């Protein structure tokens, strides 16, 4: 049996030369100290492979038509044996791929492995990052649910802001004047043909460049990169102390990849498939669209950009960021690699990482979004209305029915768009309360035309009662009598402007 197998291999090898071609690649020497830091690239590649295989299987079940896509997902989840697990695997492995590519890139940046002679490897890596994110975004659209529909609406609104050609570009992106069947087909082609094909080609290029340049050593203080002499020095060192990639380095890759695959499978079994959320029906407007985790920070940034330069930032920052990433190894291709000798790089990295993490967290909580149903689903806290006068009670009702709660919390429950009102009576005087409600301002709408003067009075009375025990109502200097008789409405309420 073994002899038979050996002669078969010999027969094939004689004709194909496959082993002769692959063996030097597998056994090429890598630095001895290339330890656990170096496993993330391999893990990214593994998850990409899983995406291809599970993606092909999903394509055998999915109906890429706007009329049927949603139902076909429900069908996969509920009728196809193991279908839900396949969808779950594809979704969680996609998250893992994004995570791994980001960790891999961070490691390469912190160790300055992008310096000579690996600048091109980094640049191809940046393109691979873009492909990964594009795959994640288009994949989210394949879900063809409410989030996908309104997510496309957000994308279309951004493209529509491009000067002069915006509208044309938008229609090209959507495949027509609306988000519809043509849109899904376009993004399907991107997701299953264009982007995977591009990614496979770039991965090949990335690997070829890695083989040519060699895997970088761990950075050592004092071991500076000098392009004129680096290659010679590196090759001498690796020749002397290096180890073959297979099995010495590969075994660590295998351990890490195996473990992360098990974790992803566990997540898939535990958490199940992601979505689909509500049906993609544009007439169902009770949607609360949120993007997948990888894009939450962008979603958050869009709420916080200063309006005057919002369009500029939305359109200009993506190309600027990409250009910056591409150009970085050209601008800093020599010198120290050790993080301790590159304080600016480390500070920049930390700042960006913290900013993205903070924005992502804001994206999860979205404090700027009114909680659409808070006015009916979040009751007024009982302890706040316990000892109120009838007028103040009336005001508490106004707060509820005028949807104030969508933006304002009372004792910790309700929207977060505006300040918590639990203690507002101690902060603002009667006049200030009335002015804020009637004229709005600072992201609060004006209620002057909506509220009757009786409602305004009741409202102000309630808001003034919103104080922790023992604290008197706020006054402005010179607002005399009113402060003397707290909790009483003033004789005349400023006329409600009509």
């Amino acid at each position: 049996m073994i002899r038979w197998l050996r002669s078969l291999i010999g027969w094939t090898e004689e004709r194909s030369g496959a082993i002769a071609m692959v063996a030097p690649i597998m056994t090429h020497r890598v630095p001895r100290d290339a330890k656990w830091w170096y496993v993330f690239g391999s893990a990214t590649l593994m998850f990409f492979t899983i995406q291809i295989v599970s993606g092909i299987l999903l394509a055998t079940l999915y109906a890429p038509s706007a009329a049927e896509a949603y139902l076909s997902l429900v069908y996969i989840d509920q009728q196809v044996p193991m279908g839900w697990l396949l969808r779950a695997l594809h979704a969680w492995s996609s998250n893992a791929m994004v995570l791994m590519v980001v960790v891999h890139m961070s490691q390469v940046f912190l160790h300055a492995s992008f310096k000579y002679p690996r600048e091109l490897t980094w640049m191809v890596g940046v393109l691979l990052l873009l492909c990964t994110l594009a795959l994640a975004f288009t994949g989210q659209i394949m879900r063809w649910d409410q989030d996908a529909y309104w997510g496309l609406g957000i994308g279309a609104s951004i493209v529509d802001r491009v000067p002069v050609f915006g509208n044309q570009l938008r229609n090209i992106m959507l495949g027509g004047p609306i988000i519809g069947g043509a849109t899904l087909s376009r993004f399907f082609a991107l997701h299953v043909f264009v982007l995977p094909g591009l990614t496979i080609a770039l991965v090949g290029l990335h690997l070829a460049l890695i083989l040519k340049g060699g895997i970088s050593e761990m950075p050592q203080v004092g071991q500076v990169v000098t392009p004129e002499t680096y290659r010679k020095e590196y090759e001498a060192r690796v020749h002397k102390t290096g180890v073959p990639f297979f099995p010495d380095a590969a075994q660590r890759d295998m351990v890490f990849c195996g473990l992360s695959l098990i974790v992803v499978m566990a997540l898939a079994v535990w958490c199940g498939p992601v979505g689909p959320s509500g049906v993609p029906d544009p007439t169902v407007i009770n949607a609360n669209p949120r993007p997948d985790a990888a894009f939450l920070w962008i979603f958050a940034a869009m709420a916080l950009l200063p309006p005057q330069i919002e369009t500029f930032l939305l359109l200009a920052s993506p190309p600027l960021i990409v250009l910056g990433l591409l150009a970085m190894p050209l601008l800093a291709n020599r010198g120290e690699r050790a993080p301790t000798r590159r304080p600016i790089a480390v500070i920049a990295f930390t700042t960006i990482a913290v900013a993205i993490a903070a924005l992502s967290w804001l994206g999860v909580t979205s404090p700027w979004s009114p909680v659409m149903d808070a006015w009916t689903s979040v009751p007024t806290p009982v302890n706040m209305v316990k000892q109120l006068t009838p007028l103040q009670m009336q005001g508490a009702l106004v707060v509820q029915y005028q949807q104030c709660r969508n933006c304002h919390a009372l004792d910790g429950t309700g929207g977060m768009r505006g300040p918590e009102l639990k203690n507002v009576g101690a902060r603002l005087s009667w006049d200030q309360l009335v002015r804020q409600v009637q004229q709005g301002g600072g992201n609060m709408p004006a209620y002057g035309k909506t509220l009757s003067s009786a409602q305004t009075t009741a409202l102000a009375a309630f808001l003034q009662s919103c104080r922790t025990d023992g604290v008197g109502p706020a006054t402005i200097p010179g607002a005399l009598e009113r402060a003397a008789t707290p909790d009483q409405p003033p004789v005349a309420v400023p006329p409600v402007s009509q």
Partner: protein
Amino acid sequence: MNDGCAECKGGCDQTPPRSRRGVMFMIGAGLMGVGSLVAAVPLLGVLIAPGFRRYGNTWIDLGAVGNFPMGQTRLASFAIPGSNPNDGQTATAAAWVRSMEGQKFQVFAVNCAHLGCPVKWFQQSRLFMCPCHGGVYYEDGSRASGPPPRGLFEYPVKVENGHLLIDAGRLPGLQESV
């Protein structure tokens, strides 16, 4: 490879006359070029055609005027004309109809002017609120607060034979005159 110098038999390493190869090469490159251009017409055409087509609007019937009681703002949904069967549910759209005194109407797109999310109407506070980034509009569609750069998109309206019609058909957007 050898047909360039067919006259010399057996191990002829004389390069063919330069001009002949050059002409052939030029012809080949030219033909490839022309062929690619011709082939590119349908490829690029299909890709970018949506950017060059004029998508017209049509008057769409939102139903009898009586469905929209005065003083109220109600959601009306409609089928987008000219859509294809492949569009499924996405071939429908919704609009907020504000009915005012004297059979006057304002019809707003549900899409927020910030980034297109669906705004919701609140009758008591007479506000539209957006769930995405906190845009808020007054009942006449003007911007009240939040990031939107303008008020809600408004459709042209007319009343014919007791029916309310709007001029619609495209996804509203900042550069899209609804």
